[in-house]
């Protein structure tokens, strides 16, 4: 366990914020997470949203009800110290060699995909679908909209520019090919529904990669 200095805490909404930590000499891969500790030595894993060449670490955090760690992190100020584990992980967007990728995320589940895109600016996915409840909750939208095939789904807000509904309403956009791997990150119900949909459309389960960040019944 080591300790890193807080560079900034940037709130998007009352419950969503980006925590920036000085990186030091830490090495990681896109998809890596780190356990972040509160002062009560409770810890929770958070996925790194920064690129592997960036000088700071970025984490997208949702303050959850009764969440000791997320509440403590939300109160950090520039210069504070945060105890962290070494980076680790088992969800590696775009890592399957010689393959193309489809990314599907909800909420803060976009973090590992941001890390991949920032680490590999010349490698873009075949498709990136991102679902949030309201427009204000979408992290780094301008950056994501530079992807040729990017769609945002808003489940609780109607706008002229984005799909109104859950991200699973966009699954018909998904391309199929033996060399495409599908990476799903975020809400459990999205991941379960999308995994089943992909398998029903003939995608091999070895080409579906999943990482659950939140459960449907935890949502407000």
């Amino acid at each position, binding site marked *: 366990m080591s300790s890193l200095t807080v560079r900034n805490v940037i709130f998007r909404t009352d419950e969503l914020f980006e925590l920036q930590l000085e990186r030091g000499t830490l090495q990681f891969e896109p998809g890596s997470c780190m356990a972040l500790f509160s002062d009560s030595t409770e810890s929770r894993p958070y996925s790194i949203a920064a690129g592997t060449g960036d000088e700071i670490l970025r984490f997208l955090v949702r303050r959850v009800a009764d969440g000791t760690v997320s509440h403590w992190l939300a109160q950090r100020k520039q210069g504070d110290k945060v105890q*962290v584990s070494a980076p*680790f992980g*088992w969800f590696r967007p775009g890592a399957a060699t010689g393959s193309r990728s489809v990314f599907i995320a909800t909420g803060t589940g976009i973090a590992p995909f941001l890390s991949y895109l920032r680490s590999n600016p010349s490698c873009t996915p075949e498709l990136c679908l991102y679902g949030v409840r309201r427009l204000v909750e979408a992290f780094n939208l301008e950056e994501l909209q530079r992807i040729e095939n990017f769609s945002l789904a808003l489940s609780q807000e109607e706008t002229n520019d984005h799909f109104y509904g859950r991200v699973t309403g966009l699954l018909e956009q998904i391309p199929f090919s033996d060399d495409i791997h599908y990476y799903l990150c975020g809400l459990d119900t999205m991941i379960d529904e999308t995994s089943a949909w992909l398998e029903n459309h003939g995608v091999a389960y070895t080409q579906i990669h999943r990482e659950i960040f939140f459960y449907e019944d935890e949502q407000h």
Partner: protein
Amino acid sequence: MKMNSTEQWNYTSQQEPRGYIQPQSLEELWFHTGTNCNLRCPFCLEGSKPGDNRIEFLTLADAQRFIDEALLLGVKKFSFTGGEPFVNPEFIPILAAALAHHPCLLLTNATEPLMNQMGAILPLLEQPNSLNFRVSLDHPDPAKHDESRGKGNFRKALDTLGRLHREGFGVSIARHMLPGEDSVAVDQDYAPYFETARVPADLTIIKFPEFHLPGSLPQVAEITETCMTQYLSAERRAAFMCNYSKMIVKKNGQCGVYACTLVDDVDNYDLGKTLHEAMEQRVMLGHHRCYSCFAGGASCSEGS
């Protein structure tokens, strides 16, 4: 946790000679892949959780050294536990190195770390030896399993168990054993889930009693030399894991050889830096988990 002195270690609190096992052979070598785990189960006997490094990730170079030494000692099987082994970034190469020589057993929660690496796991079927996955399904009630392991994890583990079986790997499950339970009835309660997963109805079910958290000191009877000779046959004594197996554990950058899979929280059970050295060491039955082996014949091993 440290036991203070040799005197205290060799004798019980009543000053009777403590029971012991003098290891006879190395048939099975266990590797601890690290206490980092994707889950955070409150009962975990290793205290594993995301980011934990009480026991560090084993590397391929670490494992290879002990695989080579174990082969010289006539080992017949390699086994792996964690943490969740598939969180270790070098686990699949380690597994391949071990499977090149002997059958392997691994303990897993069969959730995302394994599921996401199935594409790399399937080629292990081409190895010359068999690989058996022991999947944790703590209770035959998904709600009870998920209460500790996280929502949806019973269903995921069951689904993965079925996929592994259909792909051609060996599978078994591990469950919790509750005091006073009707073990046959509890085992039978898994039948509908086995049917759903399309695994054999007579799948091996390994039952584990409560082992308590690492570093805890529950009150259990102490095992004396007299207990070992008066109450246990030579066959029962030979069945103690510490008689025929050892476990490799990495702490503070160094690998040590521990007496068995259940005692890595007590430094006295670090028996040396090599298997040859460790096999010479008498294993004193002073850990509270030793009583489980004494009373119930608990073992982490299973036939290959």
